[in-house]
């Protein structure tokens, strides 16, 4: 299954590398969101520093919606998802592969977004380990849930319009947990970031296990 997952992940990453949509469209959008947050809060650095964790994860979720839409659209453009069903690959392997590719793309965007937040919002990181662990676990949760809801939206025929409405409420627990953990890592929130990270890990496990079990059924209906 790992081999098949790598084949699928490699294909998705190659598609993104060739299309350059991530670098030429999504990445600039990411930076634009951060700059607009700065404008909206009137460049008040104290406010920006206090809210940086929340703004960061809201921006990540907005970008994640675009990346999930793109990941689903790649499969539906010429009915490749039907070929996936005929390929003989285990649905769980397809899920893991697509989620892994989404994970890599989101992580790359988060690095860019993080650099922008640190520079523009004048944020200092007090606990780098907590920051990195939170980013990895939260991204895994977003990638897993996004892959599930991407194929679900395809099945419902509403991928362009309803995906954010379906996906964002499901990711609300990730937003809350990751924001608290990041707030602690930035030294701006009186919270136990590691405890929030533990909760975040629980969400990630639930999404991943659900995806492994349900992706085949959802793919059948797509």
């Amino acid at each position, binding site marked *: 299954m790992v081999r098949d997952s790598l084949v699928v992940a490699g294909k998705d990453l190659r598609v993104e590398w060739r299309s350059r949509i991530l670098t030429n469209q999504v990445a600039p959008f990411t930076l634009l969101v951060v700059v607009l947050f700065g404008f909206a809060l009137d460049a008040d650095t104290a406010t920006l520093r206090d809210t940086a964790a929340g703004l960061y994860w809201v921006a990540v979720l907005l970008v994640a919606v675009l990346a999930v839409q793109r990941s689903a659209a790649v499969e539906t453009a010429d*009915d490749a998802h039907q070929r996936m069903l005929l390929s003989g690959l285990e649905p769980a392997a397809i899920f893991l592969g697509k989620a892994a590719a989404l994970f890599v793309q989101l992580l790359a965007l988060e690095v860019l977004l993080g650099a922008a937040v640190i520079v523009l919002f004048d944020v200092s990181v007090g606990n780098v380990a907590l920051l990195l662990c939170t980013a990895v676990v939260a991204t895994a949760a977003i990638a897993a849930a996004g892959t599930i809801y991407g194929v679900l939206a395809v099945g419902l025929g509403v991928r362009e319009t309803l995906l954010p409405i379906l996906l964002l409420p499901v990711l609300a627990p990730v937003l809350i947990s990751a924001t608290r953990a990041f707030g602690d890592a930035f030294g701006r929130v009186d919270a136990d970031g590691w405890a929030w990270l533990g909760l975040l890990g629980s969400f990630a496990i639930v999404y991943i296990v659900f995806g492994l079990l349900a992706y085949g059924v959802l793919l059948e209906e797509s």
Partner: protein
Amino acid sequence: MVPAVDLDGVVTLLGRYPALAGISLQVGRGEVVLLQGPNGAGKTTLLRLCAGLLRVESGRGSVLGHDLTADRRPLRRRVGLLGHATGLYDDLTVAENVRFWGRTSRADDAAMRRALDHLGLTSKLHDAPVRRLSAGQRRRTALATLLVRRPELWLLDEPHAALDQHGRDLVDRLIGEAAAAGATVMLASHELERVAGLSRRTVTIAGGLVVGDTGAPGAPVADREPAEVADGA
């Protein structure tokens, strides 16, 4: 021997509409069967059913020995379906598409190269992104992604569509070789004169039912004169 396709009163719904309204059909291993009928008759639905992509609402059906109600997943890896869509990734090259679909079925690089050569996809085209191909080149690439998997049952929906004369000849040869190698081929086509030489059996479908069948079930291509297969090539 278990027939390649064995359908008995199968009903399949598309939405609430019965696209197949109790169809019964037997196709022997190694047969080449032409499906004909007007638009909306159920030819495409029948091919998708035989690929294990659609549910059986009522009736009984099996393909390559796999029950269409309970055993569709293992069936899917043994069939090759070319539908109206090609299932290709526009941003990948021709070679990358064939390599990806080949790897999903454990095909090696040599098999991929053979498939590309067989469909007349020259090395000049290997590195061309699929989005830049003509409709005919795209169709040939899709066939190469099927060929690399060596399916036991070919399900071809208008396989000659968008192809030039050379491409049509390649498809004819592919069908003839697949049948000669023991694979079963079902093809839906409106170009009856074109495909008449490929098959001695024509099944006519209308309203989701078989309304005509010119060939005796179970007559394999191998029983025919070799020239018949070669003529189609």
